[in-house]
């Protein structure tokens, strides 16, 4: 705002140089070519205060700019002073060249427009009223011959300055035009200001998003680098080891790490793809298909850990509408976490039910649980709760983020309930299939 005001002052100063040239030129032409009989000397003299004041303004704006403690209202004062002095000088100019009879009286409009652009609404109405008052005073003083009238002989003949009908008519038009101009200019300026503000806000938001994206890239790169460093060192070790058995072991560990890295990159790609791709192939299918599939896939893993894996499927669970592979992946991720973070002998239960038009898939376990202060963060990308970080070093922190993205794509909801040391319950709630609402192949956002 402050900077804009300073530019406004400079703009006025530049306009004033043009005005000086204009005054001299118009006076010269009317004197030498048009033979209009007015006080040319007085008109030429008007240029002197205009030039002098312009130098003063230049000096003042330089001082304001050089002083870091300058207040924005200093610039506002300067603009007001300039406009008011210009109005007075223009009035003097008109007084010596026919007063109300001089068509240049229309030039006050410029001051009104400039005030509307550079100053507040209230301030621009004040300037306009000041102009009308000044002009009114000049007309009044000339009408009653308190001030001498300098007629524009050879241009306007006839004493319009003392013709009440002419004065009232012209006055009415001048006053209404003035206020309308100020009103319109203010409206346009305000709209421009609003738009500018909107652009500024959009820009700030973009910058914020860019920052988040950069941090994301940083995190991904860091994680990938961690895996690569380890793989490299495992292979370095394998290459220097003389014992064949040990050599093979390090190579095998290098391969394991490479698999982990590949899995991480795959998960990352899947999340990115989900984010970029607004189109998902959707179809309706019975939810039990997913439950059976997941049950079959994790039975063995649970048995290995001696975990009691129970599956409960309501007969009326019915159908859902969505992408089967993605939904299965979401359920698998949750069951896998449940088994991973439940100790030997614990319980994991997968249940599926339907309430009205919502199908719920619930996974509960008697595992380590999630610290209460971190409950809201577990679905964030790369987030890993403190307690599981200690249990498993190299997990990606992407699994639950992927689940969230998938459920979002299905316009579903996730409910999370957990107690540290006692267990976790996660419910995925998905709208059930509705033939009126869901159509094969529909794109979801």
């Amino acid at each position, binding site marked *: 705002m402050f900077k804009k005001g300073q530019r406004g002052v400079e703009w006025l100063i530049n306009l004033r140089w043009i005005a000086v040239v204009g005054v001299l030129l118009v006076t010269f032409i009317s004197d030498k070519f048009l033979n209009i009989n007015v006080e040319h000397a007085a008109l030429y003299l008007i240029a002197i205060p205009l030039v002098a004041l312009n130098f003063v303004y230049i000096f003042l704006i330089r001082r304001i700019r050089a002083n870091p403690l300058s207040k924005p209202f200093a610039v506002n004062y300067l603009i007001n002073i300039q406009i008011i002095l210009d109005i007075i000088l223009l009035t003097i100019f008109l007084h010596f060249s026919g007063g109300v009879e001089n068509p240049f009286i229309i030039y006050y409009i410029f001051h009104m427009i400039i005030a509307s652009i550079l100053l507040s609404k209230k301030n621009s109405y004040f300037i306009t009223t000041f102009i009308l008052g000044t002009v009114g005073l000049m007309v009044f003083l000339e009408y009653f011959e308190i001030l001498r009238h300098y007629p524009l002989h050879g241009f306007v003949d006839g004493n319009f300055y003392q013709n009440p009908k002419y004065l009232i008519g012209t006055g009415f038009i001048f006053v209404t035009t003035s206020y309308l101009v100020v009103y319109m200019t203010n409206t346009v300026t305000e709209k421009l200001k609003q738009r500018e503000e909107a652009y500024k806000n959009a820009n700030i938001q973009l910058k914020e998003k860019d920052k988040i994206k950069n941090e994301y890239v940083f995190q991904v790169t860091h994680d990938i680098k961690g895996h690569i460093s*380890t793989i490299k060192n495992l292979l370095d070790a394998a290459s220097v*080891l*003389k014992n064949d058995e040990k050599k093979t072991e*390090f190579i095998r560990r290098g391969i394991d790490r490479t698999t982990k890295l590949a899995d991480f990159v795959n998960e990352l790609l899947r999340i990115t793809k989900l984010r970029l791709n607004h189109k998902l192939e959707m179809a309706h299918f019975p939810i039990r298909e997913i439950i059976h599939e997941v049950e079959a896939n994790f039975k063995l893993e649970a048995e290995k850990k001696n975990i009691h894996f129970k599956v409960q499927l309501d007969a009326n669970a019915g159908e859902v509408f969505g992408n089967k592979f993605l939904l299965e992946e979401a359920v698998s991720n949750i069951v896998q976490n449940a088994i991973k973070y439940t100790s030997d002998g614990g319980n994991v239960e997968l249940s599926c039910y339907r309430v009205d038009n919502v199908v719920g898939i619930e996974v509960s376990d008697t595992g380590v649980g999630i610290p209460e202060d971190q409950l809201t963060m577990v679905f964030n990308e790369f987030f890993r709760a403190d307690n599981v970080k200690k249990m498993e*070093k190299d997990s990606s922190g992407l699994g639950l983020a992927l689940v969230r993205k998938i459920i979002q794509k299905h316009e579903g909801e996730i409910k999370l309930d957990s107690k540290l040391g006692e267990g976790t319950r996660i419910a995925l709630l998905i709208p059930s299939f509705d033939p009126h609402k869901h159509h094969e192949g529909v794109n979801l956002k």
Partner: protein
Amino acid sequence: MKKILIVDDSQDMRDSLQAILEENGFETITAYNSESALKGLAEGKPDLILMDVMMDSEQEGFEIVNELKSKKEYSDIPVIIVSGIEVFTCSQAAAEIAIEMRKEFEYHNMNVIVLKDALGNTGIDYISEQNGKSIFLNVKGFHAKPVVPERLIDLINKFI
């Protein structure tokens, strides 16, 4: 045989560093966090420590070194930081400017500054996550992961 303590939370890292160092004629002991590091130190003073940074907490390695430097019996053990964290490296002469610079918002990611002097000595200045204060660590070197075995061995041989 010179003894080296390896502190790193990744078992793969520990084991491979151990294998590399042992093949190069060093004796090694390992630790995976501050507790086990102190335990390892109590069992016999090593000639040098290789220290990771991000373990159970983000700055655990720095905190361990800080603690060791304050203890008379361990303060003289040379420490080399081996980590994948992002650092800003500059000369000792530019240290003041760098430390001043990171107070500005644009450089707030410059948390860890590795300072090197003309003789190749190294120090680390980092902003503590606990209290936001700038802490100086007198360490012998900083080796960025992934470890390059020959270079790390050269660095170790400089000090023991």
